[in-house]
């Protein structure tokens, strides 16, 4: 591993932060990790935008709205290697269950016709991102270099993947790390 620290940025799009929580399960290995890694834009640092020289971008969650598209593009632009982390980033996951229902029905149920809705109206403000009619896996919007399977991927998966990358060889996940049966 080289002396210069590797810049890692992370984000959760249409995800539940479960992948980030699993990342934190690295526990004491985090101490070793930060000897080689510097966190850039991430919920862990509160840095708002990516530096232009990020090495690795970890993306949790799929793409469900226009803001997700902008954030994803920012990551693609600034990270040399972009990684889809977990089921939602790879397949759309749980949020994509709405893909079987029209967006119109979803919005009406949530904001107009649902039980207990007061002052029923569809939210409308330039500050609010608009929803895409379907939730997409992130590789359908930008080019993705690696995919880490799991819901969430275990801390061991993160560790193996990152240490492989830091050591400068092609990451490979042994079967024991990615089988769920």
């Amino acid at each position: 591993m080289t002396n210069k620290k590797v810049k890692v940025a992370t984000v959760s799009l249409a995800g539940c932060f479960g992948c980030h929580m699993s990342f934190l399960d690295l526990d004491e290995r985090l101490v070793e990790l930060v000897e080689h890694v510097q966190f850039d834009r991430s919920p862990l640092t509160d840095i708002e935008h990516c530096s232009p020289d990020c090495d690795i971008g970890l993306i949790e969650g799929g793409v469900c709205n226009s803001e997700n598209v902008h954030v994803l593009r920012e990551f693609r632009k600034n990270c040399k290697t972009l990684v889809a982390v977990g089921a939602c980033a790879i397949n759309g996951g749980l949020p994509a269950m709405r893909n079987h229902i029209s967006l119109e029905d979803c919005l009406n149920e949530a904001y107009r016709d649902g039980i207990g809705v007061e002052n029923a109206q569809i939210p409308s403000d330039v500050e609010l991102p608009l929803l895409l009619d379907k939730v997409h896996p992130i590789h359908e919007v930008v080019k993705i270099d690696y995919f880490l399977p799991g819901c969430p991927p275990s801390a061991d998966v993160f560790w193996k993947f990152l240490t492989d990358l830091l050591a400068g060889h092609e990451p490979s996940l042994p079967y024991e790390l990615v089988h769920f049966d």
Partner: protein
Amino acid sequence: MQNFIKNLAQENDFQATRLLKILRGVQTKYLHIPKDAIEQLAELLNIPRTQIQNVVEFYSFFHLQPRGQYDILISSSITDLMVGQEELVNYFAEKLGLKIGEVRADGVVSLNNTSCTGMCDQSLAGLVNGYAITKLTKSRIDEIVENVNKQLPLEQWSRDLFDVQDNIIKSDLLLNQKPTQGEAINATFARGLMETLNEVEKSGLRGRGGAGYTTAWKWKFCHEENAIQRYIVCNADEGEPGTFKDRVLLNSYADSVFEGMTVAAAIIGATQGFIYLRGEYLHLYEKLEGILQARRNANLLGKNILQHGFDFDIEICLGAGAYICGEESALIESLEGKAGIPRNRPPYPVVSGYLNKPTSVNNVETFLAAANIAIHGGEWFANLGTAKSKGTKILSISGDCAKAGIYEYPFGTTIQTILNDCGASDVLGVQVGGPSGTFIANDEFERKIAFEDLATGGSFIVFNNSRNILDIVHNFSHFFAHESCGFCTPCRVGTSLLKKQVDKIVEGHGSAGDIVALEELCQLIKNYSHCGLGQTAANPVLTTLERYPELYQSMLKKISYEPGFDLDKSLETARRMAHRDDAHAHLAQVED
């Protein structure tokens, strides 16, 4: 309904193997398979309800929701698209007052697309309540719409609409022979059964469905299996787009085909045979039943055939719209009344086939050849062809040529010779062997029809220079995604991903990495799929990518990546509902 279904089940001896036939009866009467019918049949046939549900959902011609009284299907094979299928179907839908895929509100009529119906030499083709209609034009469509709106019974429609031509244009060794009426059976017994098997081996006859397994070996292995019962099956599930020769053989040479089956049965020791006829050839069903009956009356079938002390009979089983059932083990599953999902092999059907008994499944054309070899001997056949491919091959030629139809050639004939004969000019390329075969470009026309060069089950589609290769690939990749049986993931998911990836490139959303991704996907589907369908589903892409890489590259935009769907359009609903049209309410397809 209860009585109807009970009677139907009784007519079929309450046999679960006859499930397809029973469901066909229910579908015809009630225009769908009602839930109650499934419950009742489960009880009567003593099989799980889910097994019936599975079969209903598997086959294209069974429906859980009612279709129209006139259920119209239009073939969407590439040869149909070449005569303007899309425009004509839209015209049809507009005239009928419905959307494609839907049933009209009054329940009278429904319209949908379907896979190739085996009428590529008389496109545009389709099916009305299962019966083939051909050469559809706007005026013929008008006539059908009028019939439908008048609710005229099908029997009173003009016969001309249902006219199916043989179009035999070039005959050789086999097509020049007269249909046999016992000659092959008598010759077989006169020579001796094993001696006749030797003649079949000497003839070098290989399976005509496309795979080309040596017929004599198949029969020999089947014969050598230790079993009380064995079966002969004729594979007439001619589903490969662009193939229609078996339809013609069954229309005009059925006696010889049945006699080939009888000879094979005598050799392997089978007393029961089946002909698995694709559902699209329903129009042949009654005619074939008639021929079988005539053969029974002439003692060419039944007990003690022609006093040779040998019993054999043939039953016709109709398919229900599933390409995969052309694969022999899927066909056997279907014969057993199940969904047509290919079995693990080995054991091969010659060891464990229909009802786990030794079964020889052969193509229609193979039986035709076998009957004639039984009469004329192996040498007669082996004199023609090449070292590894003996005899002749019957081709179904369609597409951009003056004379589409049936052509019989000795193996070893060059593509150029065939193109000259069928009147094809300004040729871009030829799809040999259907979508699962090979696309050859116009600098390869000296190649030959033969197992060692261009193997084919008989499909031969000609494209001239006005055609776009990517349109062809587009059509074929949609075909495979639709016909994947869903059993194994590489094929089920892979063919859908392949379809999406091809769509992305064809629709102009492709970018640099997309061709690499396409190729990787093709290799995955090809190498990991369970059966021949998946293993060949990527062929249209692979064979054209190899020959026209620059064409694929030219479809790519010069950017690193572009989404495969229209980003801004997918915000449309949200924009409308939020009454917004500001700058933040839009997305650029590509980042600036």
